[in-house]
């Protein structure tokens, strides 16, 4: 089975202190460290496991710049066969629809039975997977937490609000967005990344993909970026743990929550 996994390089929310920059146009990026979007790791692991079971190959693709190569290499160190970098100055500032359009062009350059993406990105809007499926006119399932491979089709599980589980049959080729917890992604260390350091990663620009800059340009424009003001409803308790607990109990009692 030929599988394409769409991944993204994002500022890691666990290892950064995110602050908004002075102009309010973006976050402060000077001191940030980046990594692969967490959901995408699960998608890649799932793709590798499927390939190991039924054969075929796995390709990872990302839309980004030179630095995005780092995340492709990390995924290749996990065991992915090929990397594909979509990079061009024209892609800068693309919105979700623009990214989906670029990925569609990349999909059409290959022959994939299955396309996976993370359910969402740390810094994203959870829209690319669905848009890509629609543009390709492929069937789509979101928030997938289980995949069983059948003959020309897949049985996919989806997590439903409240913890219920749903099972669906879906024909291939198709697009799935993958939920965390579907598997346990393998570890990649410095050694693994060094091993794939010399592998060639093809780079495709607007011309290679046959897309026009106008088609990529953002239709959704970001107006502002700020930390919301603390609402009156929130009452921050301060002090040591013991003091906080004591205050909380007092408050609960005063408002009738505890009798």
């Amino acid at each position: 089975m030929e599988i394409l996994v769409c991944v993204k390089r994002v500022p890691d929310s666990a290892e950064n202190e995110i602050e908004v920059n002075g102009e309010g146009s973006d976050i402060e990026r000077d001191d940030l460290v980046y990594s692969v979007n967490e959901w995408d790791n699960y998608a890649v692991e799932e793709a590798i496991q499927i390939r190991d079971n039924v054969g075929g190959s796995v390709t990872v693709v990302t839309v980004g710049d030179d630095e995005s190569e780092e995340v492709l290499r990390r995924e290749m160190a996990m065991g992915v066969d090929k990397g594909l970098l979509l990079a061009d100055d024209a892609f800068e500032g693309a919105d979700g629809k623009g990214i989906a359009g670029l990925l569609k062009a990349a999909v059409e350059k290959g022959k994939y039975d299955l396309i996976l993406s993370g359910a969402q990105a740390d810094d994203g809007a959870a829209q690319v997977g669905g848009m890509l499926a629609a543009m390709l006119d492929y069937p789509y399932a979101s928030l997938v937490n289980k995949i069983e491979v059948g003959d020309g089709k897949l049985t996919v599980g989806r997590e439903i609000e409240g913890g219920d589980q749903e099972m669906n049959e879906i024909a291939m080729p198709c697009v799935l967005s993958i939920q965390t917890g579907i598997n346990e992604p393998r570890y990649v260390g410095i050694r693994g990344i060094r091993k794939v350091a010399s592998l060639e990663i093809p780079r495709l620009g607007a011309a290679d993909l046959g897309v026009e800059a106008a088609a990529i340009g953002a239709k959704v424009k970001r107006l502002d970026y700020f930390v919301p003001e603390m609402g009156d409803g929130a009452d921050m308790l301060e002090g040591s743990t013991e003091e906080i607990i004591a205050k909380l109990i007092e408050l609960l009692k005063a408002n009738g929550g505890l009798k």
Partner: protein
Amino acid sequence: MENALIAPAEYFIFFIPTIVFSLLIPVIGVAIFTYIMALRTAPLIKAAPDNRFDRIPQRIYHVLKLWLGQYRQPRYRLAGVVHMMIFAGFLILSIRSCSLVIIGISENFVMLGFGGLLGDVYNFLKDYAATVVLVACGIAAYRRIVVKPARYAVPAKYGKDHTAEAVFVLGLISTLMISESLFEASSVAANVQNGLHAEFLAPASLAWLLKSALLSTPVETLQAVHIVAYYIHDLTFFFFLCFLPLGKHFHVITSLFNVFFMRIDRGNVKPVVYGIQDDQLDDLESFGVKKLEDFTWKHLLDFYSCADCGRCSDNCPANAVGRPLSPRFISIKGRDLIFKNYPIYPYGSRFKKSDALIGSIYEEDEIWSCTTCGACEQECPIGIEYIDKIVDLRRGMVDEGMVPQSLQKPLRALEKRGNPWGKMEKKRADWTKDLPEDVTVTDLGKGKDSAESLYFVDSITSYDDRMQEIGRATATILSRSGADVGILGKREKDSGNEIRRFGEEMLFQTMKEMNTDAIVDSGAKQIITADPHAYNALKNDYSGLPPVEHISQFIARNVKSGAIRLTGAAGDGKVYTYHDPCYLGRHNDVYEDPRTALDAIDGLKRVEMKRCRDRSFCCGGGGLMLFYEPEEEQRMGVLRVEMAAEAGADVIVTACPFCLVNMEDAIKVAGLEGKMEAIDLSELIVQHMQ
């Protein structure tokens, strides 16, 4: 010399001279033994290299102390003494057993040099030796069958009980002792009856008692006893010899070599591959131990040598809290796999191809459960190693990507930010903001200033709110003792002690290089740390650094010189106990300095826990172990806090930030809040500094 009985070398049964058996039994026995030993050697030859032929005088010293002197045996009093009796008996009787084999061929054979006085003394000694061994076998069998000490039990998941094999061997040994004594006693009894010169038997020995009982037995019967006893001894001797390499009694043969080749240094970790330098690591195809032959030959010899005594597991904190790890079975399962893959029967069997160890004989969680506290290695009477095996297996798992999610996050953060929480580098020195006004610490990370002494803080003390107190106390002690102190600030990275011990060698190498550069650039003349894990890494894993000292050593030294003067503790009404951190005590032999520092506080009441010094019980582990989510029934820290309570203490003094984290948590979990407290040595000393 005239004897009343015909010797086995001259005797006939139905016209067959028994000398035929005297020749056949040894020849067949030695042939089978050689065959088995050749097959047992095969995996050692196929195994990974190991560097064990250095420092010969030190190795001979270990042999004299641990092997000949049985130094670690009495740590378990009764079992140890019983073992020493059997061991000493075996050494003495080995000469007698060998001569007996030849006596079956040549009646008057005497071992070279044993003709005169030495022979008389020896004969006297060996009569008692056989007696002592028989008595010891009796006690050992009673323990095995009736007392059944818990450490011999085999949990269901590890297979069947091992008692039968142990008792069978005790039976073999007893048979050897009795038959040897009977052989001699029958001859002496016959000679006495016939008024001939008789060998002198040591009074009240087994042979002497048997002779006394046989004095009125007819000579024909004695003749039969004499011959039968001889061949029972001969057969049992060679059967036992061939039986040794088939199970846990292989240690009778291998322990001498195992002790000779045992690890000499402590606190260190073996290189990924012996003979490969750090800068060549990138060229290696594979990392760590994945299949049986990836172990070094010494590690396979360890498996052969395990006597199944269970002392390692009895001291293993992971085993004590119900984690899926029992060091004893790391060895036993390894040994059984060698036996299975290198079969000796039927003759000509092919060696089996090795499978991945993880998932077949070992489980992932089993290998991650180890805190590398070193209690098992400290206890093993014959120097079997575990830490290097665990680290090698982890290296193999890391290389295959088999790392639990709970550890992947901190490892990624270490790679990105140099600390397992992923906190910002620029905040690494934030703990210095709240230092007392008189205390000055220079931030050398900015590159301009210099300082005589470098305080290596390490990650947990830099970033954890509670542990920052240790940082401030340490800086205060150093500064107020007159030291010129600096820190590396944002240039300091995690020391990597656990990164290495969790098998992520390349990440460790990265940390080591960055720290080494920063330390060398700082120009500091000495390094001081309050974190034993950092102390261990800098001292044993790094190279080319100025001398490293733990704060407890600094305190002890300065108390002695008078640079630190402490006020008394009179009337605080508390009872203190000192908990030895594994990486300070067992791995680096720092036991006295923290106690000296505590005792310098006049009037401080201090008690020792039952498990202290080299038998200290791990708090739960430091570094990455804080992030690992083990399957366990309870916490190590809780057991440790209960031990402190049992000792009558109400304050646990530690000298390690990880111990302090674990103890403070454990006090809450054990419900001892208000009754028990934990404090770091540096904090306590600051409270008492004048």
